[in-house]
């Protein structure tokens, strides 16, 4: 390859990479949703939630899930968990400050355990935040086993099961430049959408402005290394069924120590074994 050809292909390659990058996020950028490469997030203010379940309905409509009857208040009698057909769930909690509604769904961790667990990269943390799923999945359920929030759910009764959970409307709406359906449907702005950085600012502002309205914590700011779905509350988060013992370490970091040891053992162990084998041989010959 001569120099001109080399420079030419280098130039084309670089141009391609740059343009690809721009075009890749362009679809979102054009709608003014993404500034740069930040995670998109949802901030949920449980003090504003009225338990109307519009978000549940919007979610079901977007992903063609069974339509919930949102008039039916009997569902609040039990604390529900998300299922393969209900990806976002409003629960009612009796707390120190009366009845509080809290919507539960995949938290879209900044460093998700499910993504680290996946041996075929079917679970993926998208550059703009959502944790999505692809159909090269084996269905090993290690993502479900590792999830600290119990939100990765494999369809039980399907011969070809998929992981079903909130995808932050990545494939249905975000790529078209629309905001998640649940946020759009919320009549009280209990859910707001934006970049994680902006929403954290917003959340802190609310905490400072109305210190009596909230407990001074943003759930999801530091939990398991931070999540893209964050909560504000008037009562301690345990009362809303949240786990507060998760720690701030990103869960994938817990197995990196082992993974780092693997190549070391792989190189040293055979050499050691061969050495021992040789050493015992000489003894025999004497």
């Amino acid at each position, binding site marked *: 390859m001569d120099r001109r050809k080399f420079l030419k292909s280098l130039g084309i390659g670089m141009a391609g990479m740059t343009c690809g990058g721009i075009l890749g996020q362009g679809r979102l950028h054009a709608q003014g949703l993404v500034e740069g490469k930040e995670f998109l997030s949802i901030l949920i203010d449980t003090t504003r939630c009225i338990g109307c379940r519009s978000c549940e309905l919007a979610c079901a409509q977007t992903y063609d899930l069974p339509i919930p009857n949102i008039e039916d208040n009997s569902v609040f009698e039990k604390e529900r*968990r998300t*299922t393969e057909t209900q990806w976002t769930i409003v629960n009612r909690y009796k707390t120190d400050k009366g009845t509080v509604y809290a919507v539960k769904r995949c938290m879209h961790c900044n460093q998700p*355990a499910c993504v*680290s*667990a*996946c*041996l*075929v*990269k*079917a679970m993926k943390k998208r550059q703009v935040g959502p944790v999505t799923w692809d*159909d*090269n*999945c*084996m*269905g*090993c*359920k*290690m993502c*479900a*086993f*590792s999830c*600290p929030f*119990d939100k990765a*759910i*494999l*369809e*039980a*009764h*399907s*011969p*070809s*099961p998929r992981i079903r959970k909130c995808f932050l409307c990545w494939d249905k709406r975000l790529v078209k430049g629309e905001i998640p359906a649940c946020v759009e449907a919320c009549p009280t702005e209990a859910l707001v959408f934006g970049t994680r950085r902006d929403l954290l600012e917003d959340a802190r502002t609310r905490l400072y402005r109305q210190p009596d309205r909230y407990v001074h914590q943003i759930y999801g700011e530091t939990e*398991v290394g931070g999540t893209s779905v964050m909560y504000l509350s008037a009562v301690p988060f345990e009362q809303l069924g949240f*786990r507060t*013992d*998760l*720690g701030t370490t990103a*869960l*994938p970091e*817990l*197995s990196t*120590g*082992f*993974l780092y040891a*693997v190549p070391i*053992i*792989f190189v040293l*162990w*055979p050499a050691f*074994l*061969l050495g*021992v*084998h040789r050493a*015992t*041989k000489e003894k*025999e*010959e004497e």
Partner: protein
Amino acid sequence: MRGKQASPEARTLKDFIAFIIAELKPRGKIFTPFNIISAPILALGIILIIYRLINGLGSVVAEAPGFPWGIWIGFNVMVGVAFAGGAYVLTFVVYILRSEKYHPIIRATILNGFLAYVFYAGAILLDLGRWWNIVNPLIGNKFGVNSVLFLVAWHFLLYMIAEFLEFSPAFAEWLGLRRIRKILRSFTLAAVIFGITLSTLHQSGLGALVMMARPNIHPLWYTEFIPVLFFVSGIFGGLSMVIFEGTISSRVFGYQLTNDFRRSYDDIVLGLAKTCAAVMFVYLFLKALVLIHGAHLSLIASPMGYWYLTEVVGLTLIPCILYLRGFRDRNIKVIRIAAVLTMAGIIINRCNYVFIAYKWYVPLSERYIPSWQEVVMALTIVFAHIWVFRWIAHRMAVYRKPPAWAVEQDRREEKKTLEVAL
């Protein structure tokens, strides 16, 4: 045993096929108690397996939201692999340390280990929701290199190949393939070294698999040393399996045991018992260290704490002491009891990580309890392993001496390497 004579040196394809067909026929009594129990379970299990693979997991698996893994992973895969650990430990002792003492049991142990991997790693398939995608991590329909499971999957596959190579001379002897046996024999050392390395990594890797689930595992069981604990417990678990398996095999296959083997058998078991006791001591020491270092002593006085004590004291410390006593008094019976207790301890330990101490805070009514179908299918895997093992051990030189030509071949090879070395 007549069929055997007609065997080897198959000159024509026809002879070869006739030989294989003759070998496929069952030998010995058909209506043994074991067969009467295992055959119906196997038949039912195979039907259930096909049913499950077609209709999906929910058709047979107990419904328990939040408990993704059940007895197929906890018992079949995790325990099966721990029990197969005897193979790499003994290949280390026999081929690397060159201890002739354990040579008589090496083939049976390797075969057992190989089949354990085939069937118990194979049991993963049952638990895969999208089982037809099992080749994806191997063919690169995305290599999830950050995943511990990716590592474990590859290691399973490679280790199966290594163990097959270790056992393959016996296959060649059976088929009378002299030249091929010579070639396969030359792979043994490489396969052993590779196999031990792989085993070290995936025995501990199975432990590393659960590490990300820290919030979900009871603090008495969760420690950053889980991989080390899995590795160490795999050693004594595997050796206990060797003792247990030997107890049964020496009766079933007694007719083909050489006199040398019979004479040395007690010494072998005593040696294994001593090793087990030593390794268990190391394990218990680690456990104690982890418990004190984690400042979890206060958790002992709770239901989960008592369960922890059952596992660590009842099914690890007590068998450890029994092993020591059995070794001291040369009492094989006590050693056998110790082996069974140790194995129970391993089963409980592995299942704890997968579904018992996992999400311990969930009330019993919402917990995972295996369905009868799951149990039948889990037993099917075990029985299939035993049936195939029995079939091979009756036909190939697993317990009996290899044919004269094979012994001669080994001697010549050894002489050659000695000459080269000198």
